[in-house]
């Protein structure tokens, strides 16, 4: 990370209701722009509407950095467009290959829930 910018890996991700629904697992970056683009969030087990993951896998989603707020004191990531109960409708991040329409789907999900 650049000097002065926090490293959110391991931070709790919370929706607009303040309830936690995952943890930041990894960061997806643009090396040319030297910026973090997405947070790879590992969802908690037992979220409403989220089917249990396959054995030895975890449910993951990608959150655009532009759509989150960082709480550096409490080490939290707040996503006002999502909540504990509605995260099930957010497109899951299944593979590291991003489909062409994946970003559009994420934006639509975030806009629809705002």
């Amino acid at each position, binding site marked *: *990370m*650049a*000097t002065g*910018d*926090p490293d*959110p890996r391991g931070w709790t991700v919370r929706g607009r209701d303040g309830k936690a629904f995952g943890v930041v697992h990894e*960061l997806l*970056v643009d*090396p040319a722009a*030297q*910026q*973090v683009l997405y947070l790879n969030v590992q969802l908690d087990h037992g979220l409403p509407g989220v089917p249990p993951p396959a054995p030895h896998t975890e449910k993951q989603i990608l959150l655009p*950095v*532009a*759509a*989150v*707020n*960082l709480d550096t004191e409490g080490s939290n990531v707040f996503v006002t467009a999502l909540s504990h109960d509605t995260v099930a409708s957010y497109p899951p991040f299944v593979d590291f290959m991003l489909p062409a329409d994946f970003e559009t789907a994420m934006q639509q999900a975030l806009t629809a829930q705002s």
Partner: protein
Amino acid sequence: MAELRIQPKKPTPSPWLLIGLAVLLLSAAAYFYLRPDPTDELVPAATTTLAPADSLAPDSPATQAPATPPADLDSVASSAFTTEGTSSSTRTTLLELSPKLTELTDRADLRDDAAIREQRDNFTSATARLADGDPQASLRPGLLAAASLLLAVQQKGYPNLDTEANNLLRQASQLSGRDATPAEQAQNRAYLAQVTTMLNTLSYPARDVL
């Protein structure tokens, strides 16, 4: 809206560079700790394998060595006679003989003999003050030690030179150790000539002397 920037990691020095530096330091330390003592360099190395004793095996390297004495012996022998008349001739000749005697005792068939080693040490001690240029140093210990050393070498491998070696020792014991009067100088000169002759003889392999 958050914004997170990243920056490339600062390049760390290559581990090979550190390893190279460590090797360099170790090499330097090893050089300073293991380099040969300068005093060792004063002792001439036994580069010429000369006379094997009869007791050596027939195929040992020493028996195949060339039966030629060191060339310098002739110069020592000549200096024993050409330096006559000067007050320090005995001292000079004795000191010139010193490396030749040492070289003889370094020979493969002689260097492991305890008696020879002891006599060699005695000779080195006896001539140390002379080598340091001490004008008060007596010549007698060095002259006697030379005869004793040659006697030890003779007893090791040259049984037929028993009489000559003992005569040399007897001759040495009769020396006064002074080199002031013409008579003393002549006596010393005669003795050193005998030493040179004996040294020259012992420089040949025993099989050639017998």
